[in-house]
């Protein structure tokens, strides 16, 4: 038993390593063959290696934890709620699932932190630790709210059978119109937040919900409808963050 678990764990470590290896390889080749300079001041090789160790270990434990805790319950809940056929609880679940998974998304924590740092240095908000933390949290809540809304709208679309591509194109048009009026400081942050939501936690659970729904309803295609939720989840944050920028800056 103990042996088996150790082997499984090592297998997971290898998966995380495989994610990281290309980055390390490309950076090392560039350092040795092209840059050919000592590391810049303030960067120590020991810290980099130690940090990469933390990244590997952290990501491995994180994914292991998701697979044995959150994913099975989340998928089971999605199935049960679809089976009950209560539209109300389905919507509540869709919204809260999108919100909750996005708040815990590591890539979003990373990008929101950097955004707050840059906005603080540019003097758009107070450049203090607490003001930056507040901005980063606000941004994450706005993005999480938008993903919640996106998953809810996606569920509504599957129930009603509305065509997906018209809604995506509609979303694109709204994004472009809002870009014209939103402050230019928020545009880059907004567009990037659309990409980070579709990452480690959100995709598996939201896809499970979509596929479960599409399988349960006659005449729906699981592949086509299951994915639709993710497509919404990457357009909606752009819209919400642009609006957030309108009010915030």
């Amino acid at each position, binding site marked *: 038993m103990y042996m088996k678990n150790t082997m499984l764990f090592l297998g997971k470590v290898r998966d995380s390593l495989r994610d990281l290896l290309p980055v390390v390889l490309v950076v090392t080749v560039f350092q040795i063959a092209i840059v050919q300079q000592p590391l810049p001041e303030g960067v120590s090789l020991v810290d980099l290696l130690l940090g990469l160790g*933390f990244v590997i270990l952290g990501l491995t434990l994180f994914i292991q934890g998701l697979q044995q805790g959150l994913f099975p319950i989340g998928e089971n809940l999605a199935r049960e709620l679809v089976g009950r056929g209560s539209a109300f609880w389905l919507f509540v679940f869709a919204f809260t699932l999108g919100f909750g998974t996005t708040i815990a998304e590591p890539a979003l924590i*990373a990008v929101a932190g950097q955004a707050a740092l840059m906005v603080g240095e540019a003097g758009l908000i107070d450049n203090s630790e607490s003001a930056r933390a507040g901005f980063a949290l606000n941004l994450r809540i706005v993005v999480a709210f938008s993903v919640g809304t996106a998953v809810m709208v996606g569920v509504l679309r599957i129930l009603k059978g509305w065509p997906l591509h018209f809604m995506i194109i509609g979303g694109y048009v709204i994004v472009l119109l809002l870009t014209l009026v939103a402050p230019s400081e928020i545009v880059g942050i907004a567009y990037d937040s659309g990409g980070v939501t579709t*990452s480690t936690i959100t995709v598996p659970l939201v896809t499970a919900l979509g596929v479960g729904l599409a399988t349960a309803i006659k005449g729906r295609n699981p592949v086509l409808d299951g994915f639709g939720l993710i497509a919404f989840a990457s357009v909606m944050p752009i819209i919400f963050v642009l609006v957030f920028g309108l009010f915030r800056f």
Partner: protein
Amino acid sequence: MEILDTFRSTILDVIPIIAIVFGFQYFVIRKAIYHLKQVITGFVLVVVGLALFLVGLDMALFPIGEMMAFQLVSEEFLPALSEGASRHWSHYYWVYLFAFAIGASTTIAEPSLIAVSMKAGEVSGGTIDPFWLRVAVALGMAIGITLGTWRIVTGLPLYWFVLGAYILVIIQTLLAPKEIIPLAFDSGGVTTSTITVPVITALGLGLASNIPGRDPVLDGFGMIALACLFPIITVMGYAQIAQRVANRPEPTT
């Protein structure tokens, strides 16, 4: 001490989703959770893992992106300028090459992409080759972030690029075989993994901070967005080519 702070904040990050699943389980579905002990250990692992990842993020992933940006645009590294000449965007060719290499290499080996492309191959009945599909996604990602670095160097507005990409996506959606469309949109999400996002973000911000005349807030973001959009275009493009090849009449032997 810093680690303890990170721990405290990750607990707060994970609380909403825990409250949601347990709330639904006990108040809406009203059923006990199977393997409760295993589930609770799972959530503990999520918190510990996320905290360690965030510490490593600050120690390694951000510094790597910043360092590469700093070194590749430093004056000693760039080609020497003749008296009074100004920098041309083509001087930054190593930046573009680095971006392309990072984009292509991280995507081609991505485990979830390998799984998705195998499945797509089966579903298509042989029209779609899993290997070339992966190449298409990796190429899209690489083009996306290379264009992203070029945009930062030149300072052109991001929305021109996004608008252009949107128009291409819409045209492609109308022309490409229907079965590929969901897969194409999905592949946009696959490219942005938890490891690549911080490195790319730090690279973009580092470039915008170190290139004269660029502003991190205005110019530094946007690479992730382009990295998500271009795979959609290349995958639909590949599907169209694959379909045309498959429909070509077999030469009679």
